């Protein structure tokens, strides 16, 4: 039998339900692995060892008593530390909320628990989710497990969520995505991440960055696992008035393994143009793979996409400043510097510019909706570059020197403006062994087709078989910087 921490969510759920493996054993293996590796990787801010083991013992007892298991019965998950958890501190990776302990679970957390999932702990992130690098000055920046020699960023803001799955510290995690915060760490860490349609998954109990841009999504090794998790998370929630009343499909049953007949639009202008050569090569190869599997691929463009950056900035900066103004006035010194500067820069946005940005948003949505009447999916790189090293501020792409932050969110944030569902899927590696991700974009509320194509691609390729060097034998990854994050381990 494969090592338990190598199994997918779907495999674990099946084996636990059929009593081939005990949920207690599964949770214990993950906790052992976290103890062995996370001092170095720093994916977790809080580890819930005893509550997780108690939940696993209860899950085992329920199975023994013949109770019908939920779809995630006994399966461990970990949560970005932005999701409220009853009785368990939720810090947003900040000093300001270091001692905040919510009284109730976020809706998605409650739904995962109701499906049988067991919470292993809370995960590191860019402070208050405001940064695509995933750095954290308060608790330490998680280490991208794909480079044993250099400290590379995992991508953010859901940095711990990406690292935990890539390094086998959790089979699935939750992230939030305001400009790419699920998809960027998924791409840079070589895993799968789904940003569902705006309104598909409740944001109630999730600390906001920018209300109208925030999305909640699952991260896991495979698209099939994301489908399983989404089914448990999605659906109307009276606590979040932006959630849709549409019924939630069984996404797993949509995974036919076929893309035959699907019309895929390859986004070259703006998206492939300006990406690093190895990224372009990987995405073009993926397009050819989809074609070989029976999809029809042609090249398309979104005319106004270049305006996504200023529009997204105007909206996110204004909404984030509105949320943070109270702390920014009272405790400015408690923010990490990049986040404080970014928040203060929001004061430069006028009301007029905010409305202009909403006009751009409407225009972009219209253009994408129109493209998606003729295509089932759009294909683009997730990031134009692979993971930079921590502290690097610029990257060279072709002949151009580009700011790291701007480069990382360039290709993901247009879809936060428009709200369309997007899955980031590993599609190759650089010669240095760093993962490359691609985005599959679908029609609003058509996550089923997005996941179906992602799953079919993953069945036909072997990228998911690779394991990062820092996720090797448990105990082999400890090194400089080992030790618990300050006051953070429970």
């Amino acid at each position, binding site marked *: 039998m494969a090592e338990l921490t190598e199994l997918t969510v779907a495999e674990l759920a099946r084996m636990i339900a059929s009593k081939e493996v005990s949920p207690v054993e599964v949770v214990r293996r993950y906790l052992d692995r976290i103890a062995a590796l996370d001092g170095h990787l720093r994916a977790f801010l809080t580890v819930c060892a005893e509550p997780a083991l108690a939940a696993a013992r209860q899950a085992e007892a329920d199975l023994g008593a013949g109770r019908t298991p939920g779809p995630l019965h006994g399966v461990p998950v970990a949560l970005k530390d932005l999701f409220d958890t009853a009785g368990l501190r939720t810090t947003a990776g900040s000093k300001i909320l270091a001692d905040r302990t919510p009284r109730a679970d976020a809706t998605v957390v409650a739904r995962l628990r109701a499906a049988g999932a067991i919470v292993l702990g809370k995960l590191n992130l860019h402070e208050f989710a405001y940064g695509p690098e995933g750095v954290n000055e308060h608790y330490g920046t998680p280490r991208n497990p794909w480079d044993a020699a250099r400290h590379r960023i995992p991508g953010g803001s859901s940095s711990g969520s990406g690292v935990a799955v890539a390094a086998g510290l959790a089979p699935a995690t939750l992230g939030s995505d305001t400009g790419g915060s699920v998809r960027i760490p998924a791409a840079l860490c070589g895993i799968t991440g789904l940003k569902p349609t705006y309104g598909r998954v409740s944001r109630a109990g999730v600390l906001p960055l920018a209300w109208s841009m925030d999305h909640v999504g699952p991260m896991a090794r495979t698209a099939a696992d994301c489908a399983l998790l989404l089914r448990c998370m999605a659906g109307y929630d009276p606590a979040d*008035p932006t959630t849709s009343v549409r019924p939630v499909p069984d996404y797993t049953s949509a995974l036919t393994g076929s893309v035959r007949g699907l019309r895929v639009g390859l986004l070259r202008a703006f998206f492939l143009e300006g990406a690093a050569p190895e990224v372009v090569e990987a995405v073009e190869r993926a397009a050819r793979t989809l074609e070989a599997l029976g999809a029809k691929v042609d090249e398309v463009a979104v005319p106004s996409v270049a305006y996504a950056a200023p529009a997204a900035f*105007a909206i996110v900066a204004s909404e984030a400043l509105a949320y943070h103004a109270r702390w920014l*006035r009272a405790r400015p010194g408690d923010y990490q510097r990049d986040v404080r500067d970014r928040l203060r*820069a929001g*004061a430069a946005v*006028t009301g007029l510019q905010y409305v*202009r940005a909403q006009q751009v948003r*409407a225009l972009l949505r219209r253009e994408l909706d129109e493209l998606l009447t003729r295509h089932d999916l759009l294909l683009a790189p997730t990031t134009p570059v692979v993971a930079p090293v921590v502290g690097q501020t610029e990257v060279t792409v072709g002949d151009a020197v580009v700011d790291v932050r701007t480069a990382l969110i360039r290709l993901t944030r247009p879809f936060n403006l428009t709200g369309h569902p997007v899955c980031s899927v590993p599609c190759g590696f650089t010669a240095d062994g760093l993962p490359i991700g691609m985005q599959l974009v679908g029609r609003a509320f058509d996550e089923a087709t997005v996941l179906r194509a992602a799953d079919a691609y993953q069945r036909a390729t072997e990228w998911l078989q690779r394991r990062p060097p820092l996720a090797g034998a448990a105990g082999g990854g400890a090194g400089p910087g080992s030790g618990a994050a300050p006051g953070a381990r429970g």
Partner: protein
Amino acid sequence: MRPRGEGEAPACQGCRGPGILARVTRLTLDELRLLARLADLGVHDEELEALRPAIERALASLAELERLPLGDVEPTTQYRVT
């Protein structure tokens, strides 16, 4: 500090053109002080100087919004709840 009205003479170094969003991309210290005071952020002068690059990058980015002829495009004002 803004917007400046169309046709109004620009009062800062970085203003270019008469557009209603006034393509301000550079700010004096006084303008930065005013900006911080309007937002009630209580930022000291030395912090404002350090913040200037971030603000000017933001302004340069925002100026892009004026380039797109948005005409009668109605802004997104409702979530897509169906």
